């Protein structure tokens, strides 16, 4: 069943110079118990997508489209109702756990605050539940940790506290924006395991925003690739990594250095994507990737490709999709 349905979402920021078209006509669905990843480079619109779902965009943003959480359109909901959904049915974790936690309150109080606000628990009951939650997210000695302050915890532990807070009201959807980017790899592995574990135990659907294709390969079941504010490709994770269709996705995959896969020659190189991301203040009316694409032709440079299914469950916005063989 579809939990979260985003359709035709566009976001435009008013600035002093030119308006910036951060998102153009993005649609996707997040199913129950699913881990869906949105992947892309800086400026592709992945975080703006997360922020619009959470209703956290600044007032300079003009939003159009529809974001439906189990049928309710979050964009037209009164502020008060949105507040009762956010943190309860729809919760979030961000990249930098230190700045998302309040340094002057104990972690127990901060986890408990969510429970007191949304579930009306008493101070004592909230503390007890906070200890249970800290235990659930794998924090050792939760009875002691509950009375500690954020600065006493390591980065990985702080992110676990954020996750404890996020899942405290048993949310239907968890939005995780670069949850492991600030963490070391050995700590990242544990956090990714935890997210998968919580989905299995609590059934929370997860929308994972990341730039890291390795993280996507690790936890995501379905993947959306974004470029210059548009969705350019969508498929299941295994399908995407095995049969990428969009030249941008293929370029990204070829640009990542891979462990133990580098031939021994001294002169081997990584594949580069020539050129730069187009300016979002003057978005092109043709395929946004065309100026950087070796397959670009007259059609690509004059029209915008629609998303279409090229393989079962695999959609791509490209006039010339597929691997080199099928293309040439």
């Amino acid at each position, binding site marked *: 069943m579809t939990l979260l349905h985003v359709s035709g979402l566009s976001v435009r920021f008013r600035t002093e110079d030119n308006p910036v078209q951060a998102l153009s006509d993005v649609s996707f669905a997040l199913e129950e118990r699913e881990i869906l990843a949105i992947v892309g480079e800086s400026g592709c619109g992945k975080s703006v997508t997360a922020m619009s779902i959470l209703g956290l965009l600044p007032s300079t943003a003009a939003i159009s489209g529809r974001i439906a959480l189990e049928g309710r359109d979050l964009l037209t909901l009164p502020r008060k109702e949105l507040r009762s959904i956010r943190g309860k049915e729809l919760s979030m974790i961000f990249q930098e756990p230190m700045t998302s936690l309040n340094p002057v309150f104990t972690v127990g109080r901060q986890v408990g605050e969510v429970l007191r606000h949304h579930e009306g628990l008493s101070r004592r009951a909230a503390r007890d539940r906070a200890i249970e939650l800290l235990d659930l997210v794998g924090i050792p000695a939760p009875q002691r940790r509950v009375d500690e302050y954020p600065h006493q915890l390591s980065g990985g532990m702080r992110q676990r506290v954020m996750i404890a807070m996020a899942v405290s009201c048993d949310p239907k959807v968890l939005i995780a924006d670069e949850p492991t980017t600030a963490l070391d790899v*050995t700590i990242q592995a544990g956090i990714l395991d935890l997210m998968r574990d919580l989905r299995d135990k609590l059934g929370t659907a997860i929308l994972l925003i990341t730039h*890291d*294709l390795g993280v996507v390969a*690790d936890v995501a079941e379905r993947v959306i690739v974004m470029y210059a504010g548009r969705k350019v490709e969508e498929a299941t994770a295994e399908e*995407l*990594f*095995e049969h990428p269709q969009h030249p941008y996705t293929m370029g990204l995959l070829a*640009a990542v*250095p891979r462990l133990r896969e580098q031939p021994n020659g001294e002169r081997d190189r990584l594949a580069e*994507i020539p050129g730069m991301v187009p300016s979002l203040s003057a978005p092109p009316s043709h395929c946004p990737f065309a100026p950087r694409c070796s397959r670009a032709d007259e059609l690509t440079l004059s029209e915008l490709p629609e998303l279409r299914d090229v393989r079962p469950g695999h959609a791509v916005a490209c006039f010339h999709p597929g691997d080199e063989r099928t293309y040439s």
Partner: protein
Amino acid sequence: MTAPVLQVDNLKKHFPVDSGLRSSKEIVHAVDGVSFSIAPGEVLGLVGESGSGKSTVGKCILRLLEPTAGTITLQGTDITRLPRRRVRPLRRKMHMVFQDPYSSLNPRMPIGRIVGEPLRMHNLVDGSQLERRVSELLEMVALRPELRHRYPHELSGGQRQRVAIARALSVQPPLLIADEPVSALDVSVQASILNLLKDLQAELGFSCLFVAHDLSTVEFLCDRVAVMYLGKIVEMAPRKELFVHPKHPYTQALLSAVPVPDAKAQRHRQRIVLTGDIPSPVAPPTGCSFHTRCPVVQERNRIEEPQLREISGQGHHLVACHLVGPNGEAPDITRETSHAQ
């Protein structure tokens, strides 16, 4: 054998910290006895997680930090205790590129001045030739020479990092110290900067200390790799040897934790998830500093500190672990962790 460009012996850097209410001074053991050398034309990767001390090593070599103990020898000259005024001329012999190309370039200087500044400082080129040399340097890093009139804020992150590289290489230093030069960049930009560094190194033949947390970029660029944990080198070996036959349990865990961008492979791979965090460098553990997180820890590791020693017959493979046999038999930590689950 040719003399090394850089020789670091038993380098230590300790930072005193005021512990607030208590009167006793605590000491952070950021770097605690690190030794290595870099041969002419060699790229040595120094890899580790946050708090391992890898950046501090780089800063001590550059004399941006004063080493607490040990010696640093650059092209045969002991530079460990050189007075300030004699440090500056050293910048002709070693130069640096930092992580953040946004804060390492002066926002008020045009690109041409930024790139030409080391040349002017060291009086290497006279005025009339400076402009031509700057254009050459910009072309060397694949930037249009017209960019020399622009300011840093007009450039993209990748372009800025190219400017920083051109500035560092302007004096043709025998040693380049690069501290996480690509970790602030997007994947596709990262690829082009890594290619550029690799090409320039092959062309100009400088030695390089490449400090990074990302193992795949280290594998791409480096000839030899040293792995740091809690202020010490725990393993050091030629690239291929280290990545194909890692011996130290920490290196094994680190390599297995890097997610590969391939869903099928990633899901069928056995991962070793370490428990716990890096211990505090204020009070490092006794014995082997990794023993608090080691999945195959034994009693001896808690008491006796392992020394970095060479494994026989493995081509300069050094490791600091009691559990690695004299001929390089490495402990199997995958089996131990799967039992635990």
